């Protein structure tokens, strides 16, 4: 279970958001929405251990994330979390396979069959040797999704995964993320202001930043 307790984040003394509370059961989904600039990406960074909150706690199955030392947070992120960033955050100089292997190495799983199957499902098995810099936006998006699942995570976070995609590709990517999270038995936490997503997927919970659900 992921528990978010009284989360507060301020920049230079100004509150970006406060009093964020939610619980997500294992294998359940959460959609976080809100207008641009409300702090959705910052919230995702906090949930993933990339940005320390001003106050509040994040608990993953009773592990208080920010009570851990920094390298333990990194280790936890590598082993338990998968992240699809809005701008993909792929290493352009590396091939598709190398990008996935890095995530696999960080998670400590070293399961190359799993990587191959993942690449097959996202339709990039034949291009695994190609450098990321030579891929189209849609292909990069699929690599980012595959990488998020490379370490067999228990929680998957997606930040605006469809912001640069047309309707057809949005449908493909969202269904791919959902399928992979079901396959991994992972909880899915998706952050977006894209209204198309709610018409494609049903979520167990929806959190509108600034509003109580």
């Amino acid at each position, binding site marked *: 279970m992921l528990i978010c307790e009284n989360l507060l984040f301020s920049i230079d003394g100004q509150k970006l958001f406060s009093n964020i509370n939610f619980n997500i059961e294992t294998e359940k989904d959460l959609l976080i929405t809100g207008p641009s600039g409300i702090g959705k990406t910052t919230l995702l*960074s906090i949930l993933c251990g*990339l940005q320390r909150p001003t106050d509040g706690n994040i608990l993953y199955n009773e592990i208080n994330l920010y009570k851990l030392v920094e*390298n333990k947070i*990194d280790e936890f992120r*590598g082993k338990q979390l998968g992240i699809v*960033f809005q701008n993909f*955050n792929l*290493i352009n100089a590396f091939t598709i396979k190398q990008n996935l292997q890095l995530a696999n190495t*960080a998670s400590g799983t070293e399961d190359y069959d799993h990587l191959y199957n993942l690449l097959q499902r996202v339709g990039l098995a034949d291009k695994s040797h190609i450098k990321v810099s030579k891929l189209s936006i849609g292909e990069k998006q699929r690599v980012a999704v595959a990488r998020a699942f490379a*370490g067999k995570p228990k929680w998957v976070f997606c930040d605006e995964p469809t912001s640069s995609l047309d309707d057809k590709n949005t449908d493909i990517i969202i269904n791919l993320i959902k399928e992979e999270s079901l396959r991994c038995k992972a909880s899915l936490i998706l952050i977006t202001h894209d209204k198309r997503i709610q018409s494609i997927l049903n979520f167990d919970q929806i959190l509108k930043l600034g509003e109580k659900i």
Partner: protein
Amino acid sequence: MLLMILGMTIITVSILVNQITKDTFNKNNPNLDVIVGAKGSPLQLVLSSIHHIDIPTGNISYKNAKNIIKHPAIKFGVPISLGDNFQNFRIVGTEKKFFKLYNAQIETGSIWRKPMQSVIGFNVANSTKLKIDKFFVGSHGLIDTGDVHAEQPYKVVGVLKKTGTILDNLIITSLDSVWLLHSNKSDIKNSRDSLEVTALLLKYKNKTSAFSFPRLINRNTNMQAASPNLEISKLFKLTGEAHKAINYLSILIVSLSFAGILFTLLNNISERRYDLAILRTLGFSKEKIFSIILIEGMTISFLGSFIGLIFGGIVYKSIEYFSLLGKNIIAGQFELIYELFVVWFIILIISFVACLVPCIKAYKQNIRSTLLNN
């Protein structure tokens, strides 16, 4: 990496040349106190008589040489006569006690019993493939000119064990053999006093004679007395300045290579700070990133210095192989290169310290701001 290779190559050659040359000069001199020969350059006399790398200053009378050996200040003396070579290995005419100087031992065969018999050094046997009972003819001069004494060949009667000194590179024979080839006298036995030798190798009974004896020879005779230790130390003083200059140059080049590694890594980190931040998001810890950068820097440094070390060795061996000087002066032993490893170790330590700067920069990197600013 190129600067590291270049710097390490120069350091290696400099250390090898300096150390092995000094070592060889020390080993080649069997504690001789003074050399007496024809007037000329004392250094030339020492180099030609003990180290066999220069031409002799001239000849001295054998009769005078015998008288000097009988001088009360002298404990031990042996004359040598140079003039010929076989495949660039010098043929030395001398007396049997010459072998005592180097504690030489016969590996096969025996010492000569009559003229035109010879004993060959360890390297001569290996290089020329001469064996016991084989004949060879000497060439005029101290390098192979092709002008040979075809009418009177030498016979090999003994091969010496390895001594690690210049003796390994010499062909030793009796004075009579040299005189037979070079004098017009038909009866060598009865005309020795009128013949000449190249130099006289001497040891004092008492070291205090080092002041009076050379003065006696230099003032009162047409010969000169030269101290091997004094002349070689003068030589090293001269070459030492050149060595210092080479060492300063190599230190400068290696320092530039440290700066090169430092700035290359810093530049790489600036270019790849986004990639490093991505690694952090994937779960690589700060310590892991630190070690990745450190391993990268140390790999450049280790490989560069190692390749430089190998290149230095190759350059040194080439110098030794291609120069006649090298062939005669260098014993080809690498016992003293431990100093080289100390220098290599110091270079690796300094590289390590230089690598820490970019490692710490990468360690302190803020992931989120790096990702946001990209």
